[in-house]
């Protein structure tokens, strides 16, 4: 098993780049016209504070924050594909 330092040596630059990418993505969204209440953006903002948690299971918690937690089961699909965030009708 690598030590914490060895893991940092292996992966810190990659994690750093991903955080900067998310920050730049949010800046980019702000600069462009459109609906600020877009459900995907809301879901992402809801997920970001999870990164600051002190407890393990952050990846699981982020995935749950970006999941459809409704109980409804339609007869057939209203649309195909997935957006990556829960439907707009879910509470933020």
């Amino acid at each position, binding site marked *: 098993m690598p030590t914490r330092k060895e893991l940092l040596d292996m992966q810190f630059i990659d994690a750093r780049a991903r955080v900067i990418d998310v920050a730049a993505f949010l800046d980019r969204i702000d600069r462009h016209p459109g609906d600020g209440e877009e459900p995907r953006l809301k879901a992402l903002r809801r997920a970001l504070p999870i990164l600051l948690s002190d407890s393990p299971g952050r*990846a699981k918690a982020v*995935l749950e924050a*970006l*999941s*459809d937690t409704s109980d409804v089961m*339609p007869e*057939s*699909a209203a649309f*195909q594909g*997935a957006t990556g965030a829960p439907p707009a009708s879910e509470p933020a």
Partner: protein
Amino acid sequence: MSYIEPHAHMVSRTTDDYEKLALAGCEALCEPAFWAGFDRSSPQAFHDYFRQLTEVEPARAAKFAIRHFCWLCINPKEADDPGFAREVMTLLPDFLDKPNVLGIGEIGLNKNTRNELAIFEEHVQLALDRGLPVLIHTPHLEDKLKGTRIMLDSLANFSGLDPSMVIIDHVEEHTVRMVLDAGHWAGMTLYPESKCTPSRAIDILETEGLERIWMNSACDWGVSDPLAVPRCMLEMKRRGYSRETIRKVAFDNPRDFLSASTNFNLDI
């Protein structure tokens, strides 16, 4: 190092990819029936597709000394039209006895609809009737958690179903534990943009253990990497895992699950 690619859609890949897989150590690969990226216009199109999976791809793979196996079904996305899906299912008995067919898959849910669930359950019953293992696709992105729960509940209602005959694929951190707790196998798909990265897949092995779990590339017509499994094996090596542990996850585990099918053997 030798490995098994337990989930790859080679109908969407080039012959060069077969060569790369062989060079990377792939001994055998398994191809579940899936959505082609567009809806087929008739059930008959599936007849051609099932021939491709049972005749054409095994021959392509054999040129590179790779054993090719497949799973048959109508995929969850095209199962939302139950009339169409049942017509396709009438084709299955003619193909299930072909020598490279492992079982029923990849069935599952796509948008978590009642139509999809009905066809899912009819497939599970077919597998039970024939004593075949089952490979299950879980939905994408925001639909995965809900779809996984629905299918686990549904599977629990099949008395006589041995949970260890079922692998639930594309698990992530929020679904893997419930799948393993139900007694099923879990598959981790290594995708560049969605599902698991190699680092996260290794984290899951560290937190959830090495039993009843495999990893695959699920390479297809979308953004995917046929060499994802050997890349993850390399990452395991960098993170200090022994040869034995890497072999267990990349070779022994898939071999053990796939051996539930009498058609699975690794002799060329």
